[in-house]
C-alpha cells in the first residue's frame, strides 16, 4: 500500500507541487463518453417530455388566473368590511397564484432544457486575461499620452493641479454640516428637572395619570413618564426616550442606599431610569422575586437592592436613580432631574455629569 502522504520537498521553483512533476501521474482521460437520454432514443419519451413541459406552462396560466381572481374578487379598504381573515386569504391566494405562475414557467423551461435540448458538454479554450503584446501597446499609448500632456516636464502644472484636486472635495464634506445640530448639553438633561420651582409628578405610561405613593404596593412596578410629557407637541419621543422611569416598591430593609442617596426613595419606593446604560434599550423586565431588572435586548441585569449595579451582561454602569419624594397631595414627585446623563454612554458623558453636579 505504501506511504499515504508523499512528503518529499520540491525544489522545482516558485510553485510547490511536489510529487507531481517528478512522479508520473494519471493522465487526464478526457471527457467521459456522452450518454444518451431516454428522450434522445425513444420518440415516445420525447413526446412525453414535451407534454410535461406544456403542462407546466399550462399550470403557470392557471396561477395567473388565481392571482387575478384573488385580486379582483376580494376587496379590501374602508367600507368593504374586509376582515383580517380576508386579508390573509387574499395574501395566500395572491402568493399561491404568483408561485404557480412563476414556478410553472421556471420548471417548464428547465425541464425542456434538461430533457429535450442537446445535453452535449462542449469544451472551449480559455484565453489569457491579458496578452503581453497588448500590455506593451498599452504602455506605449500611456507613455505617448503622458508625453503629449507634458505633465512630467511641467511640474508647476502638476503640483498646482494636485493641490487643487486635493482641496476641491472639502466643500462636499462641509456642505453636510447642517445634517444635525452640534451636540450640546441636551443629552445631560431630561424633563424631570423642576420647572419654575414646581416639582414634576410621576405619571403612568402611557396615559399620564399621576401616581399616589399609596398606590404603590410592595412588589409592584410602574412604567412612569414625567407629568406634561403627553402634552408636548414637539420632540415628545425625544423627551420620552430619556425620561422613562421604572418605579418599584421593595421592603425598605432590602434597599441599601449609599451615603447621600438615603432620601432618594420614599418608604421603599424607588425610581430608576428605564434606559439601559448599555446601548439604550428599555430595561423593561422586572423580576419581582430576585429584585433584578433585565434588559430584553442584550440581557444586562441590574440588582435593585444594590442601587441597580450591573450583575450580569454587557452593561458597565448602574442605572441612574431618579430622586423622588411625595407632595402635599400624596403624589410621587421627582425632587430633581437625574444626577447624571441617562442612557448609553458617550464621549462627553463624564464632562456632562461633572457639570450637572457642580
Amino acid at each position: 500500500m505504501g506511504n499515504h502522504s508523499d512528503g518529499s520537498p520540491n525544489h522545482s521553483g516558485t510553485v510547490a507541487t511536489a510529487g507531481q512533476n517528478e512522479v508520473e501521474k494519471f493522465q487526464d482521460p478526457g471527457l467521459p463518453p456522452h450518454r444518451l437520454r431516454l428522450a434522445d432514443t425513444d420518440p415516445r419519451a420525447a413526446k412525453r417530455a414535451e407534454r410535461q413541459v406544456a403542462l407546466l406552462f399550462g399550470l403557470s396560466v392557471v396561477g395567473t388566473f388565481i392571482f387575478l381572481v384573488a385580486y379582483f374578487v376580494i376587496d379590501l379598504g374602508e367600507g368593504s368590511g374586509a376582515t383580517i381573515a380576508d386579508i390573509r386569504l387574499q395574501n395566500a391566494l395572491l402568493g399561491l397564484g404568483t408561485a404557480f405562475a412563476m414556478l410553472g414557467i421556471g420548471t417548464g423551461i428547465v425541464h425542456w432544457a434538461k430533457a429535450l435540448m442537446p445535453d452535449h458538454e462542449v469544451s472551449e479554450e480559455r484565453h489569457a486575461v491579458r496578452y503581453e503584446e497588448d500590455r506593451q501597446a498599452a504602455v506605449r499609448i500611456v507613455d505617448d499620452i503622458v508625453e503629449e500632456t507634458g505633465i512630467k516636464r511641467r511640474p508647476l502644472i502638476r503640483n498646482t493641479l494636485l493641490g487643487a484636486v486635493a482641496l476641491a472635495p472639502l466643500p462636499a464634506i462641509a456642505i453636510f454640516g447642517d445634517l444635525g445640530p452640534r451636540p450640546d448639553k441636551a443629552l445631560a438633561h431630561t424633563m424631570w428637572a423642576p420647572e419654575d420651582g414646581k416639582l414634576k409628578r410621576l405619571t403612568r405610561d402611557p396615559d399620564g395619570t399621576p401616581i399616589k405613593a399609596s398606590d404603590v404596593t410592595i412588589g409592584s412596578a410602574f412604567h412612569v413618564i414625567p407629568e406634561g410629557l403627553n402634552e408636548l407637541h414637539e420632540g415628545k419621543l425625544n423627551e420620552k426616550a430619556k425620561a422613562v422611569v421604572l418605579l418599584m416598591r421593595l421592603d425598605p430593609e432590602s434597599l441599601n442606599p449609599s451615603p447621600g442617596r438615603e432620601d432618594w426613595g420614599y418608604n421603599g419606593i424607588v425610581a430608576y431610569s428605564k434606559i439601559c446604560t448599555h446601548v439604550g434599550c428599555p430595561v423593561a423586565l422586572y423580576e419581582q422575586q430576585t429584585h433584578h431588572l433585565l434588559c430584553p435586548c442584550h440581557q444586562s441585569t441590574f440588582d435593585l437592592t444594590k442601587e441597580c449595579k450591573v450583575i450580569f451582561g454587557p452593561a458597565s454602569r448602574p442605572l441612574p436613580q431618579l430622586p423622588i419624594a411625595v407632595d402635599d397631595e400624596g403624589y410621587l414627585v421627582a425632587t430633581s432631574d437625574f444626577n447624571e446623563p441617562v442612557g448609553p454612554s458617550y464621549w462627553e458623558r463624564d464632562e456632562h455629569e461633572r457639570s450637572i453636579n457642580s
Partner: protein
Amino acid sequence: MSAASTAEAPAYVAKTKAGRITDFVDERVGGSGILREFGRKVFPDHWSFMFGEVALYSFVILLLSGTFLTFFFDPSMAETHYDGSFTGLQNVEMSVAYSSSLDISFDVRGGLFMRQVHHWAALLFVASIAVHMLRVFFTGAFRKPRELNWVVGGVLLILAMAAGFTGYSLPDDLLSGNGLRIIDGVIKSIPVIGTYISFFLFGGEFPGTVIIGRLYMLHILLVPALILLMIVLHLFMVVVHKHTQYPGPGRNDGNVVGYPLGPVYAAKAGGFFFIVFGVIALMAAFFTINPIWNYGPYDPSPVSAGTQPDWYIGFVDGALRLMPGVIGDFHFEYVIFGYVLTLNVLLPALVPAGILFTVMFMYPWIERWITKDNREHHVLDRPRNAPTRTAIGMAGFTWYCVMWAAAGSDLIATHFNVSLNDVTYWLRALFFIGPVLAFIVTKRVALALQRKDREIALHGRETGRIVRLPHGEFIEVHAPLDEYKRYKLVGFESPAPLPAVPNEHGIVTRKEKRRAALSKLFFEDRVAPATPAELEAAHGHHGPHEAVEAADEQRSLTH
C-alpha cells in the same frame, strides 16, 4: 471591412417584417457581433454555482417589489392617528411612515403580499450572497485571476447588509425603532466623534424626526445604485475570466467545459429566475414575516422580550450580548482624561466584524503569499483537497455562528429551559474555543476524506459482496473504478511546504521565515494523490483478490 467592399456587397434585405426591424436595430447597435461572441459561450454547470444566481435574481425581485412599495410608502415621521381598516390600532398615535406601512398591509390589495415578497427576498438576498461566498472560498475560486472579484463580492455582502438594515428600519415600528436605538447606542460609543455622528445622523437627539426619511433615501437610491454598480463589475469580471469549473476528466486550467449559453444554459438560468421568484412567492404566501401590526408604533418605553434582528445583523448583536460589561471589579467603561471610553460596546461592535471582513478581503493575498502561487486557477479545489484552507474557513464560519447563536441566547434559554446566564457563559467560551476546535476537526476530516479517496482510487469501490476463497478466507470484492471516476479522485495538486528561501541579497528575512512556517502549517500533513505506479503496486499486492476481481470483470463482460 472597408467602405468600398460594403458598397459592393449585395445589401442584405430581411424577408419578414420582424426581420427588417431586427436588421434595422442590428445595423445601428452591432448586435450580431455581440451574439456571435456570447451566443454559444460555454458555462460550466454545477448546483453550487446557483447561489450567485439566487442572489442576482433576489435582487431583481427586490427592485420590482420595492418599486411597488415606494408608490404607497410615505417616509414621514410626522405624528398622525391611525385611521385605517386594522381595528387593533385604531386611533393610536403613530408616525406617518408606520401608518402608511399599515395601509400597505391592510388597505392596498396585494400590498401585504408585496411587503412579504420584499422582506423574504431581502433575507434570501443576503443569505445567498453569504452562501455563494462560502462556496467561492471553500473551492478556492478566489485565486488568481479572481481576487478582485472576490473583493467586489465582499463589498456586495456589506452593501446587502446595509440595504437590509436601512429597509428594516423604515416601517418605524417598535422592533425597528429599538434596532435604531441600539445603532444609536453603538454610534455614541465611538470615541471623539460618536456623539457628533449620532446627532448628524438623527438630526439631533434620538429618535428625532428625520431619520426615516434619510434612511429611505439611502435605501431606495444610494445603496441599490451601489449594489447595481457592483453587480455590473462582478458580472463583467465573470465574463472576462470565464467561469471556474470543478475538477474532473477533460477539465483543466486551459479550457472551460459545459453547456453553451444558447440554448441550454440560457434556458436553465432563465428558468431558474422564475423558480426563485416562485419560491419567494410561496414563502410570502404562507409564512408571515415582520408582522409590524403586532409590534405597534415606535415608542422608547416598551419593548417585547425575545426580540430578534434580521438574521444578517445577528452576529453583531450577538457579539454585543457576549461582551461582559464588568469582569470582577474591572469596568470596561472607563474615564480617560475626562472622556468616556465605552469598550464594552465599542469592542464587540467593531472588532469581530472588523476581523472577519479584513481577513475575508485579504485572504486571497494571504494565501498567495504563503504558497507563492502566481499561476491562474480555473479548476476549483474540492474542499478536502485544500485541508488547511477548508479548516481556516470553517474556523471563521464557526466563529461567526457562535456570535450569531448568541443573538438568540434568550430564545435558546427559554426554548431549552436552561439558564440564560449559562448559555451566555458557554457561548463566551465557544467564542474563543470554537474556532480552534473547528480548525482541528475540519483539517482532520479533510485529510481523512483525502485518504479515503486514495483508498478508493487504488483499491476500488466496496461492493458489499463477500466472497469465500478456496482456502477459507473471506474477502470483500472491490470493484475497480473506471478511469473517469478515478481521475476525479487523483487529478488534484497537493503542494508541499515551501521552505524559506534567501532573497536577492542572500538573506532569509524574518518575514520569509514566517511565510515558511505558515507554508509548513498549510501543507505538512498533505496527502498526495495516488499515482499509476501505486495503483500497479496495489494490484500486484493481493493476488487472490485480484483474481476474484478479474473473474468478476470477466463475468460482467460476458453478460
